[in-house]
C-alpha cells in the first residue's frame, strides 16, 4: 500500500480558504493558525463563506478590565444572550493576553459553562494543536440548532514568551497537562473529547514560557491543584449532566 493513504491529514481538503494575500500576524501566531482551521471547517459547510474570508465579523477585544471580574459590558458582548430564532456561532480566539494577565485563567475556563447555562445549544473548547477535534467542533457548532460558542486556546509566541516554532507544541502541552481540557457541552451533556490518561506535569508547560518566569514552585503546585480539581469536576459532570 502506498504510504500516502496512511495519514489522516491527507483526508483534509487541500483547498485553501484563507486569505491568499497573507496576513500581518507574527510568525508562528496561534490565532492565525486557528482562524485558518476554522475557515477550512466552515468552508466545507457553506461555499459562500469562501468569498467572505476576513470579512466575517471579527472583533478584537480585551474582555477583562484590570480587576479580576468581567467588566459589565464586555462579557455579555462576548456571550450575547440568545434570542428566539437566533442561530449564531460565536468563536473566541483566546490568546490569554489580558491586562491582568494570567490571573484570569480560572474565569476564562468558566466561559463555556456560563454559555451552556445561558441556553447555548452547543459549547466547546478547542485548540489548533488538535485540528481534527477542532474541525468537528466547528462543524457541530455550525449545525447546532441555536446559539453555539467555541473557545479556542491560541498560543501566542510574543505574549507568552516562547520560540515561534513551539506554538503547536505548547497548545498540545496545555491539553496534555489538563490545564486546558478539550470538552464539549451539547444540550446539557458534557463530554471530554481528549482524555489524557497519563497527564503531563504542569511544570513542563510553565517552564517553557517567559510569562511565568517569576513563578515559584508553590504557585505551580497550586495551579496544578486547581487544574486537577477542575478536570475532576468536569469528569463528574460527564456522568451527571449539568
Amino acid at each position: 500500500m502506498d504510504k500516502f493513504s496512511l495519514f489522516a491529514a491527507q483526508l483534509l481538503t487541500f483547498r485553501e480558504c484563507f486569505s491568499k494575500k497573507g496576513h500581518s500576524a507574527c510568525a508562528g501566531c496561534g490565532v492565525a493558525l486557528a482562524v485558518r482551521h476554522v475557515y477550512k471547517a466552515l468552508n466545507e459547510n457553506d461555499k459562500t463563506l469562501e468569498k467572505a474570508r476576513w470579512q466575517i465579523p471579527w472583533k478584537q477585544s480585551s474582555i477583562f478590565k484590570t480587576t479580576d471580574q468581567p467588566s459589565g459590558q464586555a462579557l455579555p458582548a462576548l456571550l450575547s444572550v440568545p434570542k428566539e430564532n437566533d442561530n449564531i456561532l460565536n468563536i473566541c480566539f483566546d490568546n490569554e493576553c489580558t491586562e491582568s494577565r494570567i490571573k484570569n485563567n480560572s474565569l476564562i475556563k468558566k466561559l463555556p459553562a456560563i454559555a451552556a447555562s445561558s441556553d447555548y445549544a452547543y459549547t466547546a473548547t478547542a485548540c489548533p494543536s488538535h485540528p481534527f477535534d477542532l474541525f468537528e467542533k466547528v462543524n457541530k457548532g455550525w449545525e447546532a440548532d441555536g446559539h453555539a460558542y467555541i473557545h479556542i486556546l491560541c498560543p501566542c509566541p510574543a505574549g507568552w514568551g516562547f520560540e515561534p516554532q513551539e506554538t503547536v507544541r505548547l497548545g498540545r502541552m496545555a491539553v496534555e497537562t489538563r490545564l486546558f481540557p478539550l470538552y464539549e457541552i451539547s444540550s446539557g451533556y458534557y463530554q471530554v473529547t481528549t482524555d489524557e490518561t497519563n497527564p503531563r506535569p504542569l511544570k513542563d508547560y510553565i517552564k517553557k514560557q517567559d510569562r511565568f518566569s517569576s513563578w515559584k514552585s508553590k504557585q505551580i503546585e497550586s495551579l496544578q491543584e486547581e487544574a486537577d480539581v477542575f478536570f475532576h469536576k468536569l469528569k463528574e459532570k460527564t456522568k451527571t449532566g449539568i
Partner: protein
Amino acid sequence: MVNKTFKQKSIACHLLETGKVLPFKSEEKPELMPVWDKDLCARCALCYVYCPDAAISRQEDGYFDVDMNLCKGCGICHRECWFGAVTMQEAD
C-alpha cells in the same frame, strides 16, 4: 525575546516594536526558510496542516513545498514533522 519578563512586554497583537512581524506579502524576507528532503518525507501533510500562514502547498507529486511570499520562517513545519524531513536553512 527570551530574557524579558512578561511584564516588560506589550500585550500581544498590540506590539510596540514590530520585531518578527512581516506585513502581508513583504519585500522583507525571513532569515530562515524551510527546505524539504523528499527522501525522508512520508507525505503525511502534518507540516501543511500546522502552517499558520498557509504558505505550504501540495505539489502534483504529493510532496510539499513552500511559497516564500507567505512564509514567515516560524519553523513550526520543522518542529512538527515526525520524520525530520524539514530543515530550516538560511534564506538567500
